[in-house]
């Protein structure tokens, strides 16, 4: 069943609050938590108003006194408006603040570039000590919120806005470990987030029909990055393609390119949102299709790259049709 990852977070947090009196949920009037929720959470829920820098500062102060705050804002505001407090007050002090960032990637849809977050993964993954995760569906969101109890330092969780489809049956997602959704020796499809992961799974099916076997890695944790699993998959492959709802630079594609360049001489192609601000109107699905973060594009990209490689004799593969 399709479900919004932000709602999955909200619903699984409540029992966690009840069971852990040191946890607290701090909100910036995001609208995710209604009056009933506030009553159910009691004094463990506080709406601090629309002030994201203040949110991060108060959370850091509380965390320094032993509390574990879950703070709520949109990914766009966590990343840019509140960044200095995130960097200095939270990351520098290695404090266990959980930054629950909704409207990640293109999830803000028609709300436009002021509300879209296409740089958050690049920004958060360079902060020392930060853990950065992108759940691909509601079940992964629940798993990561539960696992957050064992994350000693700060955590950034990129969430969506509207319902997105669940992944097919897959191994349980574990923070810090690449999730191998499919294994194949020819190419690696590395991805994170609901639509990119589903696109890669579909693309792998199509590629198999053409005789190309793909490994699909859900690299849901950008930091600490599971470079070992990535490199192990990339080393024997001809090509790595990354897919993400993020500007092409600095996000998952950047992390993959860095790791592969250092350890496995395999070509990396990055698919993401082009290097400009979004200038079209539409839903998340519309924007994902507009920027071709789709199975068709992944298939095309892989086949073109392998054809070119075959023609230039840089691979043993003779038949990629």
């Amino acid at each position, binding site marked *: 069943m399709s479900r919004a990852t932000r709602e999955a977070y909200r619903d699984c947090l409540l029992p966690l609050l009840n069971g852990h009196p040191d946890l607290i949920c701090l909100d910036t009037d995001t609208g995710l938590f209604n009056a009933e929720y506030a009553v159910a959470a009691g004094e463990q829920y506080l709406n601090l108003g629309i*002030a994201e820098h203040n949110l991060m500062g108060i959370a850091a102060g509380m965390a320094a*006194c*032993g509390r574990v705050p879950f703070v709520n804002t949109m990914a766009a505001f966590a990343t840019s408006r509140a960044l200095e407090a995130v960097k200095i*007050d939270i990351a520098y002090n290695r404090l266990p603040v959980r930054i629950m960032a909704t409207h990640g990637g293109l999830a803000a849809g028609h709300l436009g570039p002021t509300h879209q977050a296409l740089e958050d993964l690049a920004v958060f993954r360079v902060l020392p000590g930060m853990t950065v995760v992108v759940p691909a569906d509601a079940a992964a969101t629940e798993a990561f919120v539960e696992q957050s109890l064992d994350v000693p330092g700060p955590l950034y969780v990129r969430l969506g806005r509207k319902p997105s489809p669940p992944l097919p049956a897959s191994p349980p997602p574990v923070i810090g470990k690449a999730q191998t959704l499919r294994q194949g020796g020819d190419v690696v499809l590395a991805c994170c987030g609901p639509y990119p992961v589903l696109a890669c799974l579909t693309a792998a099916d199509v590629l198999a029909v053409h005789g190309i076997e793909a490994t699909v890695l859900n690299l849901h944790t950008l930091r600490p990055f599971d470079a070992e699993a990535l490199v192990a998959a990339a080393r024997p492959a001809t090509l790595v393609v990354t897919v993400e709802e993020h500007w092409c630079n600095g996000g998952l594609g950047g992390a993959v390119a860095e790791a592969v360049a250092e350890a496995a001489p395999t070509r990396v192609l990055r698919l993401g949102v082009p290097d400009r601000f979004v200038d079209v109107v539409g839903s998340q699905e519309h924007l994902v299709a507009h920027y071709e973060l789709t199975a068709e594009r992944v298939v095309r990209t892989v086949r073109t790259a392998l054809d070119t490689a075959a023609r230039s004799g840089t691979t043993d593969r003779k038949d990629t049709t």
Partner: protein
Amino acid sequence: MTAVQVPTLKSVAARIRSHVVDMCAGPEGGHLGGAFSCVEVLTALYFSVLNVDPRRPDDPARDRFLLSKGHAAVGLYATLAERGFFPVEELAGYGRPGSRLMGHPVRAVPGVELPTGSLGHGLALACGFALATRYEGRDSRSFVLLGDGELQEGSVWEAAIAAATLRLDRLVAVVDRNGLQLTGATERIAPMEPLADRWRGFGWAVREVDGHDASQVADHLAAAPWEPGRPSVLIARTVKGHGLPFLAGRASSHYVTLSKRNHARAMGALQATDTA
């Protein structure tokens, strides 16, 4: 702790000033002016008001203090050393390789709760302290010292709104109102008066004091909260570089590397004041 007698507060303040002068004569220099303007506030806090124990800096029941105007680090280091958080001799290493005494306070220094330096962070952090303390059911207090130039940062007022809304009456802010920032008068660069009215408008209990009268500062801080349900702010009227005639009241005192000659001049001026 037992309140320290007034003459002792004065002599402590004098020792802190002389440490700051020494540190500012080191290779890197330091933020002398803004450290000197808050010496009596720091003295009042650490030698009369704060419930802290240098032998147990992590005591969960302690009062917490943050120097939000982190550039006055030299003043804080001298105060912490005088109070016994670390040896006074360590001050000689300030700004030098191998020392933990950076130009802005860091957590590695005993007694420093959280690092500060980028302006506009301390009040929200102190709100977090006060809120967490309230959840714990403790009556300890959280103090934060802000610069007046720092009040130009919007995040200060975000936190001011939150503190009043949350009725954090165990939170006490002090504004070091020396009237000067790096390049000149705060009132010329971004006027803040009527400052007391601004804080009142944000829902705070406000008092004003001669910020160089440590005894009065201590009395006011000891009495907080002044109004039930409201956070307190003490506006300490001070002089940047107070105590050094050749620097006092001048924006140029903001960051100083004292030459050997000026170090001697400064020490002479402090001794003259001390014996006056």
